[in-house]
C-alpha cells in the first residue's frame, strides 16, 4: 500500500472539556499569566522604590572616572580610567584565573583520577584521601587557608627568596623578568609559532604513519627538540632582539618585571585543588562507566593493557567525562567570584564590589555581572551541545 502523509487531527466541540490538549492550554495560559504578573509586580515595585528613594538609573556612570587603583590589570588601567574600564579589568581577571585554574585542575584531576584506579594500594589510597579531604570542606575555607598558608612563610621584600637576579619571591608576590620585544623580534615569535605548527603536523603524520605501516615514531623527543631548537635559532639569527626587564628592589618593593600577586596564587591553588578533586571523581567514574565487555573484547583481541586504555576505553570514557567536566569548568568560573573574600580583583570583587559601592548603581551593576556569567554559561552549554552531537554514538 502506498504511504500517505499524516492528516491533521480535528477537534470536535463536544469533547473540549475532556480533551487533554484543551486542559493543558488553559493551564499554560494561567501559568503565563502568573509569571507575567510576578515579573510586572517586581519590576513596578523596583521602579517605584527607585523613584521614591531618588536613585538615578542608567548606564551613564560607566563613563565616569573611577578614581581608585586596582592591583592587577591585564589592560592599561590607572585611577583616571572609567568605571567601564573597571568592568573590563574585572572580567579579564576573572577569565585569567578561570582559565589558569581550569588548566591546572584538569591536569591534576586526570592524574588523581587515574591514580585512584591504580593497582598500587598506596597510590590509590592516597588519591582517595586527597579527593575526600578537598571535596568535603568548603571552598571559601580553602581559599582563606591557602591565602594564610601562602602568605605566612613568605619573607618581606628585603629578605626575598631569589634565584640570581631573575626570580624573587616574597610576601608581595613572585617577581619574574618581563620579556620586552624590540624591533626584529617578529622572527622569534614566528619561530615559536612555526615550532608549534611543526609539532602538530609531526604528531598527525606520526599517527598516520603508525596506522599505515604499523611502525611507531618517537614523537615526544622530536617535539621537544623542535620546540627548543627553532626559537633559539630565530633568536640568534635575528640578532637577539628580545631583552628582559628584570625586577629590582626600589624602596619598599620591587619594580619592573612581572608580578604574580599572592591573591592570584592562593586563589588559583584553592580553585584548582578543589575542582581537581571533583574532576578526579568524574574521570574515575567515566572510565568505570565503559562497559566491562569492551575491555574484555579488547583483551581477547590481544591488545595490551595500555592499548586497551588508549584505543578503546579513553575514547569512550571521554563521552561520559566531557559533560560533567564542562559543568565543573563552569563551577570553577563561578567560584572564582569568592575571590572577593581575599581581595583578588575579579569581576565580583572590583565591579560588583568597589564600583557598585562608589556609584550606588546596584541594579545596573548586578545586572551586568549576572549577564556576564549567564553569557559564559550559556555559550559553554551551546558549545557542549555541539560537541555532544558530534561525538554521539551513531545509532540506527
Amino acid at each position, binding site marked *: 500500500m502506498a504511504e500517505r502523509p499524516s492528516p491533521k487531527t480535528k477537534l470536535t466541540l463536544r469533547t473540549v472539556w475532556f480533551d487533554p490538549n484543551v486542559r*493543558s492550554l488553559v*493551564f*499554560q495560559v494561567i*501559568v*503565563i499569566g502568573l*509569571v507575567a504578573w510576578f515579573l510586572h509586580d*517586581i519590576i513596578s*515595585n*523596583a521602579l*517605584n*522604590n*527607585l523613584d521614591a528613594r531618588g536613585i538615578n538609573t542608567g548606564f551613564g556612570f560607566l563613563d565616569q572616572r573611577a578614581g581608585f587603583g586596582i592591583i592587577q590589570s591585564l589592560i592599561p588601567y590607572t585611577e583616571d580610567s572609567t568605571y567601564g574600564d573597571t568592568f573590563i579589568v574585572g572580567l579579564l581577571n576573572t577569565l585569567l584565573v578561570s582559565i589558569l585554574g581550569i588548566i591546572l585542575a584538569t591536569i591534576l584531576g586526570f592524574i588523581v583520577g587515574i591514580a585512584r584506579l*591504580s*593497582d*598500587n*594500594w*598506596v*597510590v590509590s589510597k*592516597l588519591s582517595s584521601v586527597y579527593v*575526600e*579531604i578537598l*571535596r*568535603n*570542606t*568548603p*571552598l*571559601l*575555607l580553602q581559599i*582563606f*587557608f591557602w591565602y*594564610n*598558608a601562602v602568605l605566612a612563610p613568605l619573607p618581606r621584600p628585603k629578605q626575598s627568596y631569589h634565584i640570581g637576579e631573575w626570580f624573587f619571591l616574597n610576601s608581595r608576590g613572585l617577581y619574574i623578568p618581563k620579556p620586552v620585544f624590540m624591533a626584529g623580534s617578529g622572527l622569534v615569535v614566528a619561530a615559536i609559532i612555526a615550532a608549534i605548527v611543526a609539532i602538530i603536523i609531526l604528531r598527525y603524520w606520526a599517527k598516520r604513519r603508525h596506522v599505515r605501516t604499523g611502525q611507531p615514531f618517537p614523537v615526544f623527543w622530536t617535539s621537544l627538540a623542535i620546540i627548543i631548537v627553532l626559537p633559539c635559532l630565530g633568536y640568534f639569527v635575528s640578532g637577539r632582539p628580545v631583552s628582559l626587564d628584570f625586577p629590582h628592589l626600589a624602596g619598599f618593593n620591587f619594580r619592573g618585571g612581572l608580578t604574580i600577586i599572592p591573591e592570584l596564587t592562593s586563589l588559583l591553588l584553592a580553585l584548582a585543588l578543589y575542582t581537581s578533586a571533583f574532576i578526579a571523581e568524574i574521570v574515575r567514574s567515566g572510565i568505570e562507566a565503559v562497559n566491562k565487555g569492551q575491555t574484555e573484547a579488547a583483551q581477547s583481541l590481544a591488545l595490551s593493557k595500555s592499548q586497551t586504555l588508549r584505543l578503546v576505553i579513553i575514547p569512550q570514557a571521554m563521552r561520559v567525562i566531557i559533560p560533567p567536566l564542562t559543568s565543573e569548568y*563552569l563551577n570553577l568560573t*563561578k*567560584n572564582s*567570584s*569568592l575571590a*572577593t*573574600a581575599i581581595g583578588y580583583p575579579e569581576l*565580583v570583587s572590583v565591579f*560588583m564590589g568597589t564600583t557598585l559601592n562608589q556609584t550606588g548603581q*546596584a*541594579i545596573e551593576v*548586578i545586572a551586568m*555581572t*549576572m549577564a556576564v*556569567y*549567564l553569557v*559564559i*554559561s*550559556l555559550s559553554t*552549554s551551546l558549545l557542549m551541545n555541539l560537541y555532544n552531537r558530534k561525538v554521539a554514538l551513531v545509532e540506527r
Partner: protein
Amino acid sequence: MSEYQFKPDRPAPSIQVGFIGWMRKNLFSTWYNSIFTLLVLYLFVPPIYHFIQWAFIDASWIGDSRKACTVGGGACWVFVENRFSQLIYGFYPQPERWRPDLVYASCAFLIGWLAIPKLPKKVWVGAFTIFIYPFIAVILLSGGIFGLKPIETSLWGGLLVTLVLAVSGIVVSLPFGTVLALGRRSKMPVIRAVSTIYIEFWRAVPLITVLFMASVMLPLFMSSEVNFDKLLRAMIGITMFYSAYMAEVIRGGLQAIPSGQYEAAEALGLSYWKSMIFVILPQALKITIPSIVNTFISLFKDTSLVLIIGIFDLLAIGQSAMSDPKWLGFSIEMYVFIAFVFWLFCFGISRYSIYLENKLHTGHKN
C-alpha cells in the same frame, strides 16, 4: 540411567599468604609499582608525620589563655576550646541554650531514625521530619510564643546557623526541585520553557551574587510593607539556587526510569499525577539518592558563603575569633578545626550515601 553425584565445594586456596602476600600484590607487583610506592612514601610520610606531631603530640589541650600555648610549639587547641560554645551557638543567650541543644538532639534523633535501616515507620518519620519538624524547630529556636523568650536570628550563629541554613535548604529545595524537574519534562511548552529558564538562570550565576541580591537588594523588589528576616533571606537565596541544581539531579533520575514504567502505569489506568506519585517519583528519587546527597553536601559547604553577607555561620564566627587580639596567631588551629567539622559532616553523609546506594543496589535490582 544414573543420577550424577555432584562434588562438594572446596574452600578457595589462599592466594594471598599473609601480610607479605598482600604487600606483593598491592605494593610491589611490578618494578614501576615498587618505585611508585617508595616515591610516594618518601614524599608523603614526612609531612604527615609533622602534622601528627603538631596536631597531637606537641599540642596544648588545656588552659584558659594563650599562655598555655607558648610551650610545646604544637597546635593550640586551647583557643578552640575557649571559643567552643560560640562556635556551636553563636551569640545565643546563655540561659536559653537548652533550646538549640534540644533542637540538635531531636534532629540527631530523627535523622538517626531515618538513617538506621532497621527502624520501622520510615515514611511517617520522614514526612514528620520534612513537613512538620522544621516548624517546631524554628518555633523552639526563635521563640515568641508558648512563653518562650524571643531570640532574634541575629543572635544565632556558628554551627547552629550552618545547620539551620543547610537543613532548611534541603527540605525546601527537594520538593521545589522535583516540581521544576517535572516541569522541565512536561509536554506543555510554556511550563517547560518557564522551568528551563528558571533552572538555567540559577545554575549560571554564582551563589554569592545571589546571596548579595537576597541580602541587600530584595527589599527593592518588594512593596515596602513586606519585611523578611536577614537569615530567612539567605535561606531563600540558597533555596532558589539549589532548587535549580536539585531539579537537574531529579530530572536525571526521571530520565533513567525506563519508559516501560510509564507505559505500565498508563496501561493500568493510573492518571499522570497518580503514576508520578506512586510509580515514577519513588523510583526516580531512590536512584538519585547519591546525587541528591552530593547536592546536599555542596549546599552544606556553600552555607559558609553567608559570611560574605555578614551572617555569622561557623566559618564567620571562627574568623571573628581569630581577630581577637588575645588570640592572634592561632588562625591555623581554627581553620583546621572548622575544616574538620565540615569534613566530618560531609564525609559522614557521603559515606552514608554510598552505603545506602550499595544497599539499594543489592536489595532490588531489576
